[in-house]
């Protein structure tokens, strides 16, 4: 049993879990579902999930296994590289029912992980935890198993980060809505962010110079690297390079505008020749 297992979760999975929780039927307090992804040595990467209908009673749990299998098959058709890696549940704690549900998943795959996402916001935060089911006990005596926490973190690829960037804006709007931004705005935003970061750095440096903040050698070295990373270049050379790049881009913009005008012309001329031919054809019929 690899207890030094790491779990990596993609943001899509968390969004899906939260959405399933919002859509649960009135008599369920929590939702459960299957996690799919890939296992690579000591690391389990969860890339997708889907919710399954279930009901919890005092002594037992009812879950629609057909549904789970069906959805897994469908998912396999679209994403054949995703395997079953575990299951999730919303809520903050592990209940006795969790052991029962885990039992089922142990039959489906080797060493499934269990992920909990606290959508009820018990601690004022949406905590995410992952567990594996580890056997414990003294050899020879009664043995049991328990859920042991394993480290879990959220990872995102670059396109996912781009999506998240956009989604984060909804937090600060009253309507919780945001339009997709045009490119130039993104650039100006990034530039503003960079400016803020530079301001913070400058304040720190000035504070150190004043003596109010103790100087830290590590930070000093990183700052030095930062300043040195601007390539040393002759002003004239730099101007030449900048201007030639600018000219290239301006030329491309000009050419694309020209292309657009030409397209319009082409369209109009073809239509003109069509009506021309039609006119000539009409004249002949009259004869």
């Amino acid at each position, binding site marked *: 049993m690899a207890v030094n297992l790491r779990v990596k979760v993609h943001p899509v999975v968390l969004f899906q879990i939260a959405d399933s929780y919002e859509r649960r039927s009135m008599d369920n307090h929590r939702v459960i579902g299957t996690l799919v992804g890939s296992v690579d040595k000591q690391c389990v990467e969860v890339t997708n999930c889907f919710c399954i209908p279930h009901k919890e009673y005092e002594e037992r749990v009812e879950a629609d296994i057909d549904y789970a299998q069906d959805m897994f098959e469908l998912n396999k058709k679209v994403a054949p590289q995703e395997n079953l890696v575990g299951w999730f549940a919303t809520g903050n704690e592990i209940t006795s029912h969790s052991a029962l549900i885990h039992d089922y998943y142990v039959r489906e795959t080797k060493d499934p992980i269990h992920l909990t996402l606290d959508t009820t916001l018990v601690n004022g935060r949406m905590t995410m935890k992952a567990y594996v089911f580890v056997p414990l006990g003294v050899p020879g005596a009664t043995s049991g198993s328990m859920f042991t926490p394993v480290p879990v973190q959220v990872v995102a690829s670059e396109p*996912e980060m781009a999506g998240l960037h956009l989604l984060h804006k909804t937090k600060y709007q009253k309507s919780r*809505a945001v339009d997709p931004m045009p490119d130039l705005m993104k650039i100006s935003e990034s530039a503003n962010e960079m400016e803020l970061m530079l301001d913070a750095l400058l304040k720190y440096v000035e504070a150190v110079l004043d003596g109010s903040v103790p100087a830290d050698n590590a930070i000093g070295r990183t700052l030095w690297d930062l300043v040195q990373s*601007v390539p040393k270049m002759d002003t004239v050379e730099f101007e030449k390079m900048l201007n030639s790049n600018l000219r290239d881009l301006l030329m491309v913009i000009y050419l694309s505008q020209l292309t657009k005008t030409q397209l319009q012309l082409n369209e109009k001329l*073809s239509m003109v020749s*069509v009506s021309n031919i039609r006119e000539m054809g009409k004249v002949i019929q009259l004869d």
Partner: protein
Amino acid sequence: KIELVQIDGLVLMKLIKHCHEAERSGSLFVQGALLGLVSESRLEVTHCFPFMALGDDSQDDDEFQLTMLRRLRQMNIDHQQVGWYQSSQFANFLSLTLLESQFSYQTSIEESICLVFDTAKTAQGFVSLKAYRLTGETLKLVKEGDYSADNVKENNISYESLLTEVPIVIKNSYLMNALLLELQEQLPLQVGGSQFLDLGTSGTLETQLRVMMDSLDELNSECLKFNKHQQIVLKQIQEKNKYIQKRAQENKQRIDRKEDPLPAEDLNKLFKPIPPPSRMNPLILSGTIQNTSEEVSEFCSQSMAKLFITEPLQAAKASAASSSQ
């Protein structure tokens, strides 16, 4: 009449996941269904699921979709299909199949949209999502199936009026906002910020321009075909004219000689009408080139902005160097 498309944050993340995963495994065009509901003039997209890879049995496809919809309905997920999505690279999504698919969607469900997700642009960090619908004229054109130049002229269709764009808004629920706050702590946003200010833009520019050049070459050959056709038709008309005149003259001579005039012959049998080339391809190519050139302009303007940012950096460096000497 749809004026706004509202997309859930979940749908955006699922789109990104599906389209980029597919791109990594090689397939360029992936498609999927959009589910949601319509409320007045607003179309809400609340869920989506991918379709199987194309080229398979279409019956399998239908079964897949039906099973998927049934299962999703059990989980209280909206099961009404409100459109479909397709991935694209740098605005090369326009094609006859797209128009025909959107036509079938729009005739069955009036408010459907086609969502185009640009994977190449998102890989650079700019989320590019556009919603399109067919205009009334295009609907008529596809229904008739007659893409000849005459019909296109009749309906006054130009490549710009093939599709209309609908504005998009992305919305999150309160729980999603809480999730985002949590994610912000775990995934600091600064991690992804540097790609926006990347100065190495020539590679992408070259790819885009190459795509544009290919489309232009195709459009050029289509134009030549069309022009040739026009010339042949013109010549045919002239020959018809000559023939009619000759006939008329001959008949006049015969009447003078008190003989019966020759019977009128079916002109169409003598001069077979030449089928005109379809105007659909040039329209689509023009539309694609239009989109690509707009993308290129936008890309260039943001590259220029980035170049201008480096100027003061260099100036500061130069002045620091000169002051330290």
